[in-house]
């Protein structure tokens, strides 16, 4: 079925964030939507999903004007959406998450559980995610698996349009490939796939057409064959990005962190490595390989069962000059309801005091400096709740918090997830600056290109063990991946 948006405007309160968007999608097409953080992609998607009613404009389905009043409306018309934010209910089984609101019933109205599990199984298999057990509590799955459940959930019933808002942000390796395969199968079946992503490589690989949205307006419509990643980045950012990854630095100096034989039962085993001043070390692995757990353990957030070098508590780690930017900023990086100021100052409250009181003026000055230095947008956001910043800027706020603590060792867990290209480049540049100032950096990432481009050295983890230690200058993406999946020569 074909889908047409005409002059769509959307306002929140008295502020308009979409200024008249026109968009056309045809059956059997993968339509990619790209744009910087806060450009309006998710807003557009919520409108398509019936989760948000547009302020003005119209939506036509197969030429006929329709008004989507609710998610239910959209659903009934075959429009299915996977939202940017995970919306899994952790306390329910995968089956329930998949079939929510559409359970098979027996006579008498009771849910037919065996049939429900069977249908869930079918859905997962159909989507190519056969490894997931539908009877498991969804909250027990890794983020990647939860995302796969979300995708499978969208496929229940007759699907005509599938809208995916950054589905790949938490996927890597074979999971990502399963997703691509699924999208291709759907396209062959004549489904229109609307695909939002910050990963331009996959957009170029998958899309039939690409629209670029900037500040609430479509500023370009093109095709992979007629454009390039750098052109897209230029359009999105409104500036040319000469070089994504900074040039290499001086050779590293003294050792800042030494980990040996570190283990935590059920998560990772016998990890040994060292980080040196001025060095950026990448840590790659498939989702679920235990990288985050290891980093949290080094930082003292979780106790180790064996080994040396990890700290006993975050307080101890911080005192020793460590900083950890966690992978899930909502769950463990930010306090969304508090101001940017409070968030950025959180780890350094005790150090900046006048008597028993916080040195309010000094704190404000330091935070403002950091906001400027990282160019967190909008510039005068200190007293705004951090939750009202766009994703990329929230990420920068987490970084700012740790930079204020003046760390000697910086651990970044997926710092560019969901972050637009221009902001990523800012982050790479910043990390590079820090390394030049003598910091040791551990960069955990599922993005192969990034792991190779932004680092000096790459550690690879596989199933909880260290499976490789490679020099970025001399290795390749294929070699890293081979170590990660256990097929290294």
């Amino acid at each position, binding site marked *: 079925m074909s889908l047409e948006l005409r002059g769509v405007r959307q306002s929140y309160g008295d502020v308009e964030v979409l200024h008249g968007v026109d968009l056309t999608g045809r059956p059997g097409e993968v339509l990619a939507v790209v744009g910087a953080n806060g450009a309006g992609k998710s807003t557009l998607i919520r409108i398509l*999903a019936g*989760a948000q009613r547009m302020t003005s404009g119209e939506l036509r389905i197969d030429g006929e004007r329709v008004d989507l009043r*609710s*998610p*239910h409306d959209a*659903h009934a018309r075959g429009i299915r*959406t996977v*939202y940017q934010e995970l*919306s*899994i*209910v*952790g*306390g*329910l*089984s995968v089956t*329930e998450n998949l079939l*929510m*609101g559409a*359970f098979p*019933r027996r006579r008498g*109205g*009771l*849910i037919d*559980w065996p049939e429900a599990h069977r249908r869930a199984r079918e859905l997962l298999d159909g989507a190519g995610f056969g*490894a*997931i*057990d539908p*009877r*498991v*509590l969804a909250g*027990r*799955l890794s983020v990647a*698996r939860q995302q796969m459940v979300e995708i499978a959930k969208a496929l229940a019933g007759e699907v005509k349009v599938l809208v995916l808002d950054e589905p790949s942000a938490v996927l890597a390796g074979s999971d990502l490939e399963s997703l691509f395969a699924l999208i291709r199968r759907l396209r062959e079946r004549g489904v229109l796939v609307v695909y939002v992503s910050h990963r331009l490589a996959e957009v170029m690989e998958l899309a039939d057409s690409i629209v670029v949205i900037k500040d609430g307006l479509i500023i370009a419509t093109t095709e992979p064959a007629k454009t390039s990643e750098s052109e897209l980045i230029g359009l999105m950012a409104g500036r040319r990005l000469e070089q994504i990854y900074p040039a290499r630095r001086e050779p590293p100096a003294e050792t800042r962190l030494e980990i040996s034989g570190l283990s935590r039962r*059920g998560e990772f085993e016998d990890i040994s490595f060292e980080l040196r001043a001025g060095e950026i070390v990448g840590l790659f692995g498939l989702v*679920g390989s235990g990288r985050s757990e290891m980093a949290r353990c080094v930082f003292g957030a979780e106790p180790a069962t064996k080994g040396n070098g990890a700290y006993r508590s975050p307080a101890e780690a911080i005192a020793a000059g460590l900083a950890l930017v966690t992978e899930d900023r909502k769950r463990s990086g930010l306090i969304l309801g508090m101001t940017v100021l409070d968030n950025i100052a959180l780890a350094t409250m005790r150090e900046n005091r006048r008597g028993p009181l916080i040195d309010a003026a000094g704190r404000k000055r330091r935070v403002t400096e950091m906001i400027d230095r990282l160019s967190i947008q909008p510039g005068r956001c200190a007293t705004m709740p951090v939750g009202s910043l766009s994703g990329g800027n929230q990420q920068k706020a987490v970084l700012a918090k740790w930079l204020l603590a003046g760390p000697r060792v910086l651990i970044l867990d997926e710092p560019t997830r969901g972050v637009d290209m221009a902001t990523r480049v800012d982050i790479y540049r910043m990390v590079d600056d820090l390394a030049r100032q003598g910091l040791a950096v551990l960069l955990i990432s599922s993005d192969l290109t990034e792991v190779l481009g932004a680092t000096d050295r790459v550690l690879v983890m596989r*199933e909880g063990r260290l499976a490789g230690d490679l020099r970025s200058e001399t290795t390749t993406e294929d070699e890293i991946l081979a170590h990660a999946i256990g097929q290294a020569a």
Partner: protein
Amino acid sequence: MTGHIARIRNGRDIFVTAAFVSLIVLLVAVAALTSDTFLTQTNLTNLLKQMVTTGLLAFGMLVVILTGGIDLSVGSIVAFSGILTAGLVTGLPIPVAMLAGVLSGVGFGLINGVLVSRFGLAAFVVTLASLTTIRGLAFVYSEVPIAPEDPAFFTLGSAMAGPIPVSTLIMLAVFAAGGVFLTRTPAGRSIVAIGGNAETVRLAGINVPRHVTLAYTISGACAGLAGVILASRVGIAQPSVGVAFELDAIAACVIGGASLAGGRGSTRATFGGVLVLVLINNLLNLYGVQSFWQQVLKGLIIIAVILVQRTNRVRG
């Protein structure tokens, strides 16, 4: 990679239940071994009767708690429904009057639910306010206690079906039906899901306010029923009864492992919570512990119970 994750869900439930069941078995065993009276027919009947009010209120409370809410107004509803029923008995057939009592609970629950779900007000304050208002209304309806003459009025509260009080059977039926409702009907699952993540449920095309309202209505209905049974049991309805009843009901849910944040809790475990509370009371009575020491001990035992519960949950 996923083997260890698999089926933790079923596993966890079993573990909690096992620890919990052993706790209750332990309590019963201690009681039976240390008190001659505990296993007597009279005492057991007594136990069964004692759990009716807390049981009914706890089930309704569980449904509300599952949505992430709370219902503080149940004690006042007990009072109102009782006095209304007793008041109507003079003019109406007893079953009709009793139905009216239950329906008054339904009505109050409906209002609570609408205020919480449609107007988006905090459940704690809404039901705290209705606690006050409904209590006042009970007195407005009748300042003086009402004791219906007809001895048939006592039947519901005192009749026995063999060794088991009819009122207990009613309560058990509510739990059984409630268990099926919560685990096997779409509406019940929606209520559980709402407590887990209301936005997701909304996006799944389910009418969230309607289900939240339903939850409060169920709680109100249970409280209405409890009020009718209580009045019948005592033989008189007094507008001042039921103060602080909500606390035991909430305690039963939480002892049973329900999360006040919503989305987690089971009817069986809540019933276990009711049992624990009633057993504690009964034991302290059987041992002849002095009233104020009973209070001291009751609190300490509750803490001990949730400590055991927690330890097991973590281990399991």
